[in-house]
């Protein structure tokens, strides 16, 4: 994974709550065996409306998405993260995220920032004209208007993002402990037959 310390750029002020994974990438586009190429179908159902903010030329090249509460609810499909990233979105700011979406995002180096609604409202307004900066070292979102909003992030996730850690390699370093557990006689270590 590529290390991430900062995401800087224009943000799309989408703002809608409960954007589910079927909206982010519809099931009909999940028939792929690679991670790439899904961007063309990202948020497709919202983009059918002629005046949708996502395709507004003002936000061409935007790399941040600002959404409403419970972003990414629904399916576990990591395709939702891949689709947004394929479209160039590398960070999402929202009042809350579904557990699985934020987990999937982090594993792909996408930054999810949780901020309270009033600060989101402010950033939505800023986004109309100005870029913003998400900084993982200072854990802040800042704007050219001197806004400075602090956010929290799980220590481990932050570390992995900053260092671009390969989580599987990290766990494989615990191989001996996993082996010890497997030979511990823990009650559930039953192998299915059939």
């Amino acid at each position, binding site marked *: 994974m590529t290390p991430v310390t900062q995401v800087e750029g224009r943000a799309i002020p989408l703002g*809608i709550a409960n954007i589910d994974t*079927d*909206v982010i990438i519809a099931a009909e586009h999940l*028939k792929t065996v690679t991670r790439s190429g899904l961007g063309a179908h990202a948020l497709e159902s919202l983009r059918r409306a002629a005046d949708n903010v996502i395709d507004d030329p003002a936000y061409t090249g935007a790399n941040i998405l600002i959404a409403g509460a419970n972003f990414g609810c629904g399916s576990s499909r990591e395709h939702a993260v891949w689709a947004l990233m394929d479209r160039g979105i590398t960070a999402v700011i929202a009042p809350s995220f579904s557990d699985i979406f934020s987990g999937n995002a982090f*594993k792909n180096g996408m930054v999810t920032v949780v901020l309270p609604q009033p600060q989101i409202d402010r950033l939505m307004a800023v986004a109309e004209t100005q870029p913003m900066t998400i900084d993982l070292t200072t854990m802040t979102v800042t704007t050219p208007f001197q806004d400075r909003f602090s956010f929290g992030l799980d220590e481990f996730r932050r570390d992995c993002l900053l260092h671009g850690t390969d989580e599987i390699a990290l766990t494989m370093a615990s191989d001996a402990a996993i082996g010890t557990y497997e030979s511990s006689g823990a009650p559930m270590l039953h192998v299915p037959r059939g």
Partner: protein
Amino acid sequence: MADPQPQTLYEKIWNAHVVERRDDGTCLIYIDRHLVHEVTSPQAFEGLRLAGRRVRRPDLTLAVPDHNLPTTARVDGEGKRVPIADPASAAQLAALEANVATFGIPYFTDRAAEQGIVHVVGPEQGFTLPGTTLVCGDSHTAAHGALGALAFGIGTSEVEHVLATQTLLLTPARTMEVRVDGDLGPGVTAKDLILTIIGVLGAAGGAGYVIEYRGSTFETMSIEGRLTVCNMSIEAGARSGLVAPDDTTFAYLAGRPMAPKGAEWDRLVGYWRSLKTDAGARFDKSVVIDAASVEPSVTWGTSPDDVVGVSGVVPDPTGIADPVKRAAAAKSLDYMGLTPGTPMTEIAVEHVFIGSCTNSRIEDLRAAAAIIGGRHVHPRIRQALVVPGSGLVKRQAEAEGLDQLFIAAGFEWREPGCSMCLAMNPDKVPPGERCASTSNRNFMGRQGPGARTHLVSPAMAAAAAINGRLSDVREMMA
């Protein structure tokens, strides 16, 4: 010496699976069971291949295709395999077949009698056991909590992590008890109960929590019913739902092909009996619902918490105080093509889908068949599908003559798979048309672009098929 700290069922399963505990409270958790299907696994296997990694425990893994398989015949009259028309679906199935062969993973082919929806197959085979940790690249994995397994959906990166290490790095969840006591009324099913619970909690109300379903209503419920309840925990935002294992659980599992046998069975049943929340254990949140207050339920909008009793009406968004929720409700109604104040039972439907991991087990098919009796689907219905959850469910239903009853009534009787639950295969609801569906998600476009979904129980779906509109099943029960 002080008494040991009372623990919830969740805490007991969690503690039994900690391989390593890190300073920040994150734990490396051992995973006992991993279910794999064709849609969320190809990129994970690709990752393994690129890094030169193997699958650590193929023996704890089980693969079965379900999401995008067509539900039409898979072998022709001469027993030859029927090719999948859609090249992308065919490629995904071929990738799964190649991957399970390369990595040595047990596999049910698309033509095996055991094939079906992952969440139907796991319990049915005895692959799912109480007290295990079970994962799958699918959010409805929570279903397996019905057997007392800590089960949750994971993304593809986590699928790869489990394949490589048989563990996941996790932070403990908060605990919530949803307590329901008493009997459900006539015509009220596990589906109506979970829809009601989701309506109470809200679509994000369970986020960060593992829900344990407690109380006499769940204790007297069948495993099929518990599977329906736990399945939809994710629709309230919770990653897992649990019901403590009991004699009903053990009776369901005894003799299943992959379940333990003999002395090992006895040993495990002894252990499973200890898997109950201790008296005095603390939940972070408690919600109490009276079983008698639950009505046959139906969704009106595009979020699973948009629920009303079937005797209710389409709600009026202008009455919602929260501006964000008000806007969402208005948008939902616009998409659904509904007018506030319309009685739910006046809403005409053109499609009926009985299937999905929520409601495609034998008990569900029996419940739908019981409502149909000898009646026929309404002329307005363009398509009524019954898609059994597995080949074994299908076989059992056929042995009971249910297939003939459905076919005589005007339903199509299909091969097992996810089908119209997510419309990845050719089974779709056309744009603007309306479906009474026993599945679990009414999101925009879930059953096909522009499709309008009303989530209901199997009995309510059968009633809708007969009347050509959403109906109160209680009026159809003789």
